[in-house]
């Protein structure tokens, strides 16, 4: 895996690698910048070219030009950290690379993270999985639902896509492992810390897990990171089932709302024992209703974008 110059530009401008304190560009800012560069006949790597007058070429304001200038100066540190991460077995993929998950590129558009870090079996990203999300403090019944859904996913021979947090995420992932299934874990914090754990290393060794994050792999949890993480889960799943959500508050609620509004991916909501106070409202907003874990297969009948793609191929 060698980064192209465009990929290096994405790493330099949109990540917090290299112990950066300063804000980098958001995915949206990045995509807009590369669009304007493209319109002017330049590639994204033009940001490294001192002879290109960014203000003139792209029309972006002086603040942003200055910010890009500072990020460019730090590029070496960020790129060295990519090497550091690779050393630990963590890969870096950018929107310019073939290895970047196609579903994310298609569904998230300008909100797709320009750079994704990960570890483990990238093959698991080429098929849409079953997203299972819900609150950390799930009820016992809700936990059972999460586990049943995970086992359904295994029976359907697709990976469980989840957040790698406590509660619903953990229960669903462990249930999938317990039935020899595979898991895509989208993390909101420290990928570096996660790959130190013996059970995670074992799963990585067995090849049935892929861990992803758009955060710098050494950074800790933030609410913003959790929201970005949710986008990726919805983006990677043929359908994402919300097991239990609060109403008008919490990450699960906000993530599901955003996914429905922005159509990141099909959303279903559990209706039955163990559901949360927000589940009804999500259904009202357009999420599909799921009453039996075994009905999960029915939700998959509409071809997912990746299936459409493979049909076209």
């Amino acid at each position, binding site marked *: 895996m060698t980064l192209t110059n465009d990929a290096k530009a994405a790493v*330099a401008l949109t990540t917090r690698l290299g112990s950066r304190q300063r804000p980098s560009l958001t995915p949206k800012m990045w995509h807009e910048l590369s669009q304007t560069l493209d319109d002017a006949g330049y590639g994204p790597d033009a940001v490294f070219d001192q002879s290109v007058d960014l203000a003139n070429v792209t029309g972006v304001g002086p603040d942003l030009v200055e910010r890009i200038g500072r990020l460019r100066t*730090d590029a*070496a*540190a960020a790129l060295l950290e990519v090497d550091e991460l690779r050393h*630990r077995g963590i890969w870096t993929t950018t929107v310019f690379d073939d290895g970047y998950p196609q579903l994310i590129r298609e569904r998230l558009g300008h909100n797709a993270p320009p750079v994704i870090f990960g*570890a483990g079996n990238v093959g698991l990203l080429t098929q849409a999985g079953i997203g299972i999300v819900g609150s950390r403090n799930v009820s016992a019944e809700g936990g059972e639902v999460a586990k049943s859904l995970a086992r359904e996913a295994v029976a359907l021979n697709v990976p469980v896509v989840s957040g790698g947090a406590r509660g619903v995420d953990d229960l669903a992932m462990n249930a999938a492992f317990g039935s020899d299934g595979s898991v895509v874990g989208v993390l909101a914090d420290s990928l570096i810390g996660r790959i130190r754990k013996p059970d995670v*290393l074992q799963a990585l*060794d067995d090849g049935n897990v892929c*861990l992803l994050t758009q955060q710098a792999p050494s950074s800790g949890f933030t609410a913003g990171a959790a929201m970005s993480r949710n986008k990726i889960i919805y983006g990677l799943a043929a359908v994402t089932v919300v097991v239990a959500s609060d109403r008008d508050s919490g990450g699960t609620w906000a993530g599901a709302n955003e996914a429905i509004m922005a159509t990141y991916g099909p959303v279903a909501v559990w209706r039955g024992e163990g559901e949360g106070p927000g589940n009804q409202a999500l259904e009202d907003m357009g999420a599909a209703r799921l009453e039996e874990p075994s009905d999960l297969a029915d939700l998959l009948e509409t071809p997912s974008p990746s299936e459409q793609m493979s049909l076209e191929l």
Partner: protein
Amino acid sequence: MVSFQDRATELLKDLTGRRNADWRDGQLEAIRTIIEDRANALVVQRTGWGKSAVYLISTRLMRDAGGGPTVIVSPLVALMRNQLAMTHPLSLNAEIVYAANRDEWDRIFEAIQAGDIDLLLISPERLNNQQFRREVMPQLFSNIGLLVIDEVHCISDWGHDFRPDYRRLQQVVASLPPGVPVLGTTATANDRVVADVEEQLGSDLQVYRGTLERESLALQVLDIENKAERMAWLAETIPTLSGSGIVYCLTIHDAERVAEWLRSQGVDAAAYTGPMDNEARLEIEGRLTNGDLDVVVATSALAMGYDNPKIEFVIHFQTPGSAIAYYQQVGRAGRAVDTSFGVALSGWEDTDIQDWFISTAFPNEDDCALVLDRLRDSQDGLRLADIEALVNLRRSRLDSMLKILEVEGAVYKEGSRWRRSAERWAYPTRRIEEVTAARRAEQAAMREYVSTDACLMEFLRRQLDDPGAERCGRCANCAGELFSADVDSTLVELALRHLRKSSLVIEPRKRLPTGIEFDLALKDHQMEPGRCLTRWGDPGLAQLVATGRDVDGRFDDELTAATARLVEEWAPTPAPTWLTWIPSRSAGEVIEDFAVRLADRLGLEAVSALERVRDSRPQKTMQNSFQQAQNVIGSFVVIDRRPGPILLIDDVVDSRWTLTVVAAQLLSAGSSPVYPLALADTSGPGS
């Protein structure tokens, strides 16, 4: 305005100090590639061609144009010092960062930050150093102007000089900000290595490759199987040669022994080996350069780093396992002299020693799997000492295994702890087989060199894929014998005697490996330095030890006589008053019988003082300190003793743990001091 070419030529004149200096074919073009095209270049040219002119002049041009500094990665400190000295004529502000000048790092790092450094020399190990990576590289790489990888063939594991730390360079190159040119230089790369370098540094590499001919070097091969005869030949021939030269040996022990022998014959000779400290090596290099030494007897440790154009002869006491390695070493001769000689003496032991190097080049699959599993299962990673307790591998082999697993991406280090990486990893069986097969082919080619009737220089140049290879007209095969293989029989006899008496010192082990339990403190119960008669696998007495132990079941009287002589010459004080032996597991009475006869000769009392109470495994099969110490503790008890100084006898010594531990028990029982004595040292190659 001064043209690019005029300015570069002006710098070349400054650099060489000659107003009439002119470009070598390819030099200016390589500089153009770097400066004007900002593209990557690979320069494959013989030593002395002027590879340094390419990057020194490029650096000056770049700095004058406001560009960032050059970073040179170089494998040896000696090489870096030479390179540093060459920067003065161009007024380049250059610094070296290496392990030994740690106290200067802060000053250098500040100078880098301030932009005052034009050229920084570092070893590849720096690039793997966590502190350097964190504190220096981000700043350094943020405006680096040029990255130079010297001896770039070390990057290829097809090559004879592969260094795991170089492998990391591929990733460092990949991490460079766009637009930074990379220059690789080497004197020894065949097509396969060039292809490998291209693959690792990027395909847009512009290759500048020149002739490997050395017009003043005459080659010859002499087949003198016997070691003592070869030693005699050296003692007879070297005094007849003008100027100074290098004798290459394959093992450290041979280098030391041959140097000693030559000194005993009135030749100004010094040994030069890897384990010697840096200062000692520099001193020897200096003496050789100044002509204070006739000859340096070296292992391959004196290879890329030493730059002395006045070397007039290079003689191989044993031949290396590849023609490329041979060319690299013999090419030390004949650079700035009119005539020089390269003589390969081919001995019976060459193939065995080469085989040993080939077969131990890679860690074994089971060991790798075991270490990876344990690292995976550990909560907090493992320290080196923890891993040593898990695997039966000697420390140096374990170090090299971890380094290989690290560059392979299977493990990484956090502080002092090793951890399993997230990368799935399978033992690269196929690749190892391929590389091993390639090494076997190189070995076969070297054997062919030893026996060929064809032009020797042409043969070597073909091995290096030099397209201009042609008959040299100077070598023994072209122009007739340069040296006779005849040797003086009196000298052979002397050499044989020298081989017999060059005994080895047994140093006490001082510290138990972490985690080993032993109720005696070694520092309070330490044996004296002892003696060992021979090195296992050597001709002469060592062969008598082997047949005595494994065939005859009795050590020959010649061994008792030689051992008695050794003790007399050694004369430890206070003199031993009695002796005992380590009861052998398998060899039964052989050692006891020997000890009793030796006691008789030395006039000492022989006492059966030790009993084996546990049937431990042979120490020879225990590969590291932890396993060896573990294996011996609790295996013997002291059943009898005398109070006085004691000679403690064993047939072979390997790790020294048996002698160290048993001596501690005897000392604790009240016999003091304890002098260890063994017949053969089985550590290292040849055993």
